[in-house]
């Protein structure tokens, strides 16, 4: 079963950017900081003086896990696969699928975000070693 990712005016620029290979992040003009996940307000100041800016795709692995059991049936055919928390150079963290040779994935690996069509949507993944 594939769930449709719901978009709304606050999240749509992120997914629209992904379709064009761009990593678009919400930026609070008041706090002068990026935040993620996209939402109605800036979670720091709770105001809505927010715009989307394109950011560098480079970052590094904070932590990760390689799964040998899938959370649900729709992921079973992809096993084994890695996912992890990625710290981007713009300051935010993302939870992403990590591509590449599984045994060589390690905490601290740098790389960059790329986009893949998954389950009928264009979504971000992290590719260790790849320069943005």
């Amino acid at each position, binding site marked *: 079963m594939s769930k449709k990712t719901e978009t709304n005016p606050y999240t749509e620029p992120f997914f629209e950017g992904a379709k064009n290979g761009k990593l678009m992040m919400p930026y609070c003009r008041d706090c002068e900081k990026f935040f993620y996940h996209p939402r109605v307000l800036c979670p720091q100041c709770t105001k809505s003086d927010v715009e989307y800016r394109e950011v560098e795709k480079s970052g590094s692995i904070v932590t990760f*896990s390689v799964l*040998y*059991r899938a959370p649900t049936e729709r992921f079973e055919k992809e096993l084994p696969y890695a996912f992890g*928390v990625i710290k981007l150079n713009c300051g935010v963290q993302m939870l992403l699928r990590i591509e590449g040779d599984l045994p060589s994935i390690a905490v601290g690996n740098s790389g960059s975000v790329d986009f893949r069509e998954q389950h009928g949507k264009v979504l971000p993944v992290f590719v260790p070693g790849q320069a943005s």
Partner: protein
Amino acid sequence: MPDENHVGKEEVSFMKPSIVYAAVLPPKRYKEYSRMDMYGMLFQQFARETGVSKNDIEAAFVTAHSFGMAEEQIIDYLKLSPKRCAAFDVGGATTLFMLKQAMTLIESGEIKNAVILGAGKFDDVDREMALLSTSHPDFEAFAGPSMPGYYALFAQRYMHDFALTEEELALVSVAQRKWANLNEDAFMYEKPLSVQDVVSSPYIATPFRLFDCSIPLSGGGLVFITAEKTKNPVYLKGYGEAHRYGFITTNEDFTSTSAVKSGARAFDSAEISHDDIDVLEIYDAFSICPVILLEDLGFYEKGKGIEFYKKGRGEPGGDLPLNTYGGLLSFGHPGMPAGFHVFVEGVRQLQGSCGKRQVKNAKTALVHCYGGMFANHITTILTNEQ
């Protein structure tokens, strides 16, 4: 001869709520029973053992269900008419949260007693719903994370930062199994476990192998709290709660949790020190959890928690017994009501009713539970001394 001080003490002791009954439904598969039937089984045992009539129950709190209505279910199934009734959800910490609500309401004089209960079927969950509720549905779920995977993020980073090995981590599950082997109600009662068994079991979510993970089963528990004087009372001496992040993406520390704050708050309110603790009951959905929590709660420096296991301190015969019922790792994990397994054992150790696994002269217990993806932490300190 009436003495003013004596009379004053009597009044205080009457109003001070205590936990007088605590029991679990031993975790199994219970395929033939609904969750409501499990509430019924818990309640029947409670009424039989205490003689309390359901008509005298003034509050009933229950762990919430994914699609709600747990409060309606217990009212309907048991035909209760309490002054207060609600379903709560703080994940695995819900039991301790409900305990605090019950205690506070009794202390305020609003109610005289409360029953808190929960039943879960963690072996029969809608996996799609579990994924979309433990993860941000739009910004995390697409990566395909799992619950073991989320906790593995902590283990991976911890092992990286503090050079903890898989063999060392395996000591946690082995220690739990030793307690389970003393507890007939534990799912793994008859099965021994060695470090070799753990490190040769299949990977679930690296670095976790099968035996680093608790056993999803059905079960639950029921606790009764009252302002009336009864035998074997257990008191809530300290309580601390703390929250830091929601979804895992924004967590900025994978080797430490908000148990640092909940633990400090609990010790402050109890006005005791770590040396006063006789027994520990710490929620252990995965092997890394008690290692991190022993540090966060102030028993070890960061990175040194595994020393507790290397010295066998928490095992049967050790100087600071930990998870004396076998832990969720070897006793079984029923989902949100798992806090009952952890908490009930703390109460029963202080009541002296644990048989072969009884900790001698246990007077003070620390019970710690967490909810979410290691996000919501509650620490309680219990005592059987007034």
